[in-house]
């Protein structure tokens, strides 16, 4: 945990503040103001990312700080979900945006770090980035699943799908990314350590997350919307497994732990 007393840090904190106030204001039924604040947060996020780009003079996707900074520009995902997938959830997205930026603001170092040999691979960034992207869609799916279980649909918009269908559609978008993350990780494991599967807890939990969504697909195929509550429950379980995957071996202990070279 560290606070960044830099312009870069300030931009991140401004974005988080804008997202959080956007969320609160939206909850207080000031949708228009909330949306404006969300857009403002997005503008800060773009400036933060652009500043980073100018600062490091390469596409800023080479370490975890930069990946989370990138994900902080979540607005296009909201827009894509609404326009293309016909799924709402703007308010939740504001919160997801703030959560995603938290590691960039408080956990990961902004100064370019000297990577240990095992992490010097072109696979590092895509493996992490793809996972994080899928987590955003799965988080959105979880919000919809919770609405379905609660029997509520806060957004009365005829253009949007109802929560059960919205959950399915979001998982359909997130699942290929989840699969890609798993396979890239496995391929990298082979390149770096000699085994494409090492049976370590992080790997097993990521497999669990993946399997829960596989179960979701098959259960939903078998029963359709007749067992809508179970569908939603499986979607939520998937997110629970993802959170455990992320926290099980927390990142600070992950690098010097089993996932490292020559310890």
């Amino acid at each position, binding site marked *: 945990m560290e606070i960044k007393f830099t312009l870069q840090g300030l931009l991140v904190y401004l974005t988080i503040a804008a997202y959080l106030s956007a969320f609160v204001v939206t909850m207080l039924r000031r949708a228009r103001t909330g949306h404006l604040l969300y857009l403002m947060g997005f503008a800060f996020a773009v400036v933060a990312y652009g500043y980073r780009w100018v600062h490091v003079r390469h596409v800023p996707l080479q370490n975890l700080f930069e990946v989370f900074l990138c994900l902080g520009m979540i607005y296009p995902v909201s827009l894509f979900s609404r326009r293309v997938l016909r799924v709402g959830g703007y308010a939740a997205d504001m919160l997801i945006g703030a959560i995603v930026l938290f590691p960039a603001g408080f956990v990961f170092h902004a100064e370019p770090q*000297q990577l*240990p*040999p*095992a992490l*010097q*691979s072109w696979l590092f960034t895509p493996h992490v980035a793809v996972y994080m992207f899928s987590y955003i869609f799965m988080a959105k799916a979880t919000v919809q699943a919770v609405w379905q279980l609660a029997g509520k649909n806060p957004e009365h918009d005829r253009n949007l799908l109802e929560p059960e269908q919205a959950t399915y559609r979001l998982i*359909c*978008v997130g*699942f*290929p990314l989840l*699969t*890609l993350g798993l*396979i890239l990780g*496995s*391929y990298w494991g*082979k*390149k*770096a*350590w*000699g*085994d*494409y*599967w*090492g*049976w*370590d*807890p992080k790997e*097993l*939990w990521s*497999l*669990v997350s993946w*399997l*829960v969504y*596989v*179960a979701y697909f*098959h*259960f939903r*195929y*078998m029963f359709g919307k007749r067992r809508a509550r179970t569908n939603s429950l499986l979607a939520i379980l998937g997110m629970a497994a993802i959170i455990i995957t992320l926290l*099980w071996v927390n990142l600070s202990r992950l690098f010097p732990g*089993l996932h490292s*070279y*020559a310890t």
Partner: protein
Amino acid sequence: MNKFRRAILWAALAAIVALTVLSIYGAFIGADRAQAFFNRVPLAVYWVFFAALLAVGIAVFRRLVRVPGLLMMHAGCVLILVGGMWGSKLGHDLQKRLFGIEKVREGRMVIYEGTSENRIVVDDAGREFETLPFSLKLNDFRIEYYQPANLYIETRQGERLKVPVELDKEFAVGEGLGTAKVVRTFENFKMGKEDGENVFYDDPNVGSNPALEVQVTQADGQVATKYIFEKFPGHSHGQDAFLMNYRRTISDYISEIEIVENDKVVGAKDVEVNHPLHFGGYHFYQSSYDDKAGRYTVLSVHADTGLYVVYAGYWLLCLGIIWHLWLRHVLAKMKSKSA
């Protein structure tokens, strides 16, 4: 859906849930025990059952064959399972018994600089060996560091300074503490006597003792020479106004390897972390080294049995899922727009 198909789907769901539960159990017992657990005979039965179930599913659900994405992802899973089982410990035992294929599954090689080696250590204690039909010769093992290295300075007031090591570049240490500069670097620092005087030199022989010679000019003009050792951090004298540490960050471990077959050199590669050597059905990985003197390297050896079947499965699985869940819909949308 008829009863039989429904039963298959229930069995599939049960198999998926079972693997989920087993994986959670595996996560609790740690990697080594989990690996042993998932390779036991009852689990092998489960893996075969799962693969067979997928195959039966493909056979009885017409959509799984007709819809390309569905076929690719389910067939991909079959390939991953089959490839994984073929390359497993039990898989290797079976191949030996049925087809007489003698392939070492995994182990490690210790190779000294300038020598060839064809033995693979296959047990933890280092007593059991298997031999390869070719040898690996280690020309040189080296460690590379990020440049520049750094000199870390901590004053008694707790101020910290990080200075990149550049020869003869003077820098201020802190208020009233004067200046300093690095005047010499050593890879293998040694001390000797010449005419009763201490002399310090870089020993080209085997050994490693990286050090810096730092010239400190105090505020009152007095000059002193200090030696800072990477392997002995935090070493200071009572009268020192500040503490100096020399630290380098490793960027890579490199083994320069030649492959020797029938006394002929048939290939060469610098084996680095993330860049294994692939030859004769095996992958060789930079794994460890002689951390005292850098005289030998340790490569871990893994057979590539079944690997390409697994990779083919990965491709099918990925392409199938991306096609079925994404591209199919994008294409349909584009078609409906243009119509």
